[in-house]
């Protein structure tokens, strides 16, 4: 998970931190820090003229290397900050998705609660402080990941997001990015009508489904485990109480029981901070759950582009066949054809008309060939770029997930050590009795 601290953020983002990559500094994150803090409640008027309450977050940017060439020109101050609400983050992300379809765009924290088990733990209320805090962390991670990406971090709208206080929304809309969005229908069509689906993207789709399923499963069980562990610790508070009461009727054993009871209370209380920490790792994993969606978008775009190519290829074949037909006259053996019908009904074309038609077809063919070339080029560039970014994503994912596992293990180790020490203390109470 991308943390606020610049060190780990560097790990997350710029490749400069890994010894394997080149020494070049490649992204914005190496020269500045971003943090999302201080959620505040605001009331305003919504688009439909109704009063609404929403939360805003303070987005603070601090530049660490003022002299860097990477810095956009508009970043003149060393620190600057502004308030953003969730919908603005959403807008930024949508813009980036449309503008950089070959990039695996980092996900935003959830808007609504999807999974039942989260509802039960009180996450449904969007003003619940816990929910807001976890959202804040997710939003920060999002910005850090964007800033860490070579291409994305150069985007002017992104810079404006960090810097432009007034009318940022209008600026985004002014780019007309919505026009570039692919229609749902087209995308769906593409999915189902590809003749030769690209093996790599099929694999990627499968991979993203597996990733999603595995993480979802993991998170569900982790939640259950957390609840049980919580229960077990809290039951020990009952031991604390009964030892305390019991100590009241005992003479020599009284002190020992009393202290033992105290330790039981400590034990019961110790679980709270541990579970809070575990929540942060769960959130980090959840980020990758949403990343699966971003991967699928990549696949969809590829399918669309390939579909365009195939459509054009088909068209080309058809045109050529048409031309052939024209030149050779009606081909009786081809069975039913419109040409055959019209010929029978209206008489065959005159040579002049035929000539004209053939020319038309040639023009169309030429056009289609050009289109096909363009589409093929677009497809191949897209494939190159997207696969490259997918590789970057995968490497990042390996780093991130490993870090999560390491942190989780360290947390468990801490918990175990605390447990050993606490039970040793408790034992002393009894042995000294």
């Amino acid at each position, binding site marked *: 998970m991308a943390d606020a601290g610049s060190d780990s953020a560097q790990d997350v983002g710029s490749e400069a931190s890994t010894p*394997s990559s080149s020494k070049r500094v490649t992204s914005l994150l190496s020269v500045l820090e971003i943090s999302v803090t201080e959620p505040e409640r605001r009331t305003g008027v919504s688009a439909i003229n109704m009063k609404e309450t929403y939360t805003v977050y303070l987005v603070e940017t601090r530049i660490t290397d003022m002299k860097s060439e990477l810095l956009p020109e508009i970043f003149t101050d060393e620190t600057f900050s502004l308030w953003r609400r969730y919908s603005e983050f959403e807008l930024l992300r949508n813009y980036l998705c449309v503008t950089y379809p070959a990039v695996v765009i980092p996900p935003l924290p959830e808007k609504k609660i999807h999974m039942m088990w989260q509802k039960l733990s009180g996450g449904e209320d969007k003003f619940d402080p816990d929910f807001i805090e976890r959202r804040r962390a997710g939003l920060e991670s999002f910005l850090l990941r964007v800033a860490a990406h070579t291409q994305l971090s150069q985007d002017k709208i992104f810079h404006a997001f960090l810097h432009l206080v007034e009318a940022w929304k209008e600026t985004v809309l002014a780019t007309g990015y919505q026009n570039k969005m692919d229609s749902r229908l087209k995308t769906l069509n593409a999915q189902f009508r590809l003749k030769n689906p690209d093996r790599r993207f099929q694999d990627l789709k499968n991979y993203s489904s597996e990733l999603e399923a595995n993480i979802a499963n993991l998170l569900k069980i982790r939640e259950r485990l957390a609840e049980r562990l919580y229960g*077990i610790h809290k039951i020990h508070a009952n031991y604390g109480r009964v030892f305390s009461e019991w100590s009241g009727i005992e003479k020599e054993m009284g002190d020992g029981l009393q202290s033992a009871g105290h330790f039981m209370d400590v034990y019961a209380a110790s679980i709270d901070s541990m579970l809070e920490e575990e929540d942060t790792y769960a959130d980090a994993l959840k980020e990758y759950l949403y990343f699966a969606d971003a991967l699928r978008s990549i696949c969809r775009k590829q399918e669309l582009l390939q579909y365009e190519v195939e459509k054009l290829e088909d068209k080309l074949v058809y045109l050529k066949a048409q031309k052939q037909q024209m030149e050779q006259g009606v081909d009786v053996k081809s069975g039913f054809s419109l040409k055959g019908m019209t010929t029978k009904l209206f008489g065959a074309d005159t040579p002049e008309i035929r000539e004209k038609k053939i020319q038309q077809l040639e023009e169309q063919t030429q056009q289609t060939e050009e289109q096909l070339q363009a589409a093929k080029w677009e497809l191949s560039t897209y494939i190159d770029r997207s*696969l490259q970014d997918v590789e970057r994503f995968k490497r990042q994912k390996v780093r991130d997930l490993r870090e999560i596992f390491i942190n989780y293990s360290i947390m468990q180790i801490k918990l175990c050590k605390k447990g*050993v020490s606490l039970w040793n203390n408790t034992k002393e109470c009894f042995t000294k009795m």
Partner: protein
Amino acid sequence: MADGTDSGFSEGQPSGPGGSSGPISPDLDPLNITTSTVDLEESLDMGAETPLDCGPTPRSFYTLFTDGEGDPKAAGDDITVFTQSSLAGLQLDDALASDVHDLFVTVDDPEKHITNMESYITYRVTTKTTRSDYDSHEYVVRRRYQDFLWLRERLEATNPTHLIPPLPEKHSFRRLDRFSPEFLKTRQAALQKFLSRIVDHPTLSFNENLTIFLTAKAWELASHRKQAQGIMGKMGSSMRSMAAGYMMKNRSPEYATMQEYVNTFGAKMGTIDRINQRLLKEMTDYEQDLREFGPVFTLWSNSETELAPAMLGMAAGVEKCEKALEQQISDQEHVFAPPVKEYILYAEAMKAVLKRRDSIQMEYELTVEELNRKRNDREQLKMSDQSYSLGAFMGKDPEEVRQQKRTKLDAQIEELLKQVEVSNDNVECANADLKADLERWHRNKRRDVKEVFSELCDRNIQYYQECLSAWEETLQEINQKSELETASTLATPTSSCPDTPNLATPTSSVTPPLPATPTKEGTEGGASEGQEVTQ
């Protein structure tokens, strides 16, 4: 007390095998209570001087019950679960005098018996003794739970003033399977404890019912049991005991305190038992979830290549924790819970003996009341006018009537005096027995609590240590792979520069076409640059 002569005073006698002492001294003035009390206290003090916390206990005493030494059968042949269970490993109750250590009993080897009517378990009871009132030095018999029940009933009936150790409950509630190995081991240990406590009690260990229990053949025991059923038992005292607690005038506050203590103690033990049950349930559920957790990592590792070792490491860590938890759960149920249940039963036994003591005191007070009434009557008689009595009415001389009544009352008073004397002694004996038993019980309770709860802590420590090493190992594995990985990526520099367009892998053989494209590229990659950002 049917054969109460030997119960009250044997504690005061420091020597002599067998210990049945002489009857109550006839010189005692039955109403001069203080004298008899003093005597009793003196003899008690004598007993107290013999160190209750027996310093160096004879070595032979312990060999029987420590693991692996002495009689190898002592700890039970098949106990692999407990090497140091809180029941089997606990020391025996302290004995007052060192020469009581001449009777050793062990319980082991549960066996299932199936008959047409029922199936049940018997345990082997082995006795070793040097006592002269036992015909042989060693006995081996088979006894079932019902036999233990019989023994306890008989002991209670013949020693109402003593605290009789409890037996484990008849049924186990959580496990419906009363033949499961864990249940049998727990019960065996509890039965062992029961017998050890009795054998170690200075009075109870000489009880003839115990001797029968330890030595009789199966058919002999059966006939004794039938006999016992013929005797209706002490109905009278049980009825009186119901009212006793509330009606006593002279009960000293220490008994009220004892009562309160026992009630509270029993309640606390009950609470602890319930907490144990809840904890057990939660831990079991937790373990089930853990069992599902590990495989998720394993499954996930199938779709990851570089992370697979780390994920398998996680899975392994989780699995080891689950194993540790399994052990913890088993200990919670079979090692920690039974002693707590036993002390709940002990509290009940204590309540019973307190009640019985109360009823004995009640009897004494009633007798004294009766005596005073009769004396009062006698005084009244001197001054009364017998002319209107029934006897005079029937033609007798009033003076004769008075004399007859006087004689009758004298006889009654004489009888009551004796009864008062006896019942007073009973009270004193009962108090002494109770006091001694309770003192012993408190000492043992303290030791048991120490041991049982220390062991609970030990097991938790062990659990956490196992989990600790599991996660440390996992951490190592995860980190290790990371080094391997960086090593491998260093070897292939081309794949490590992510932002140079990777044209090395041609996806199509299409050449970048016509002028149309550069603008396309420009708009795609540099869409943001094309935009003027207005401020």
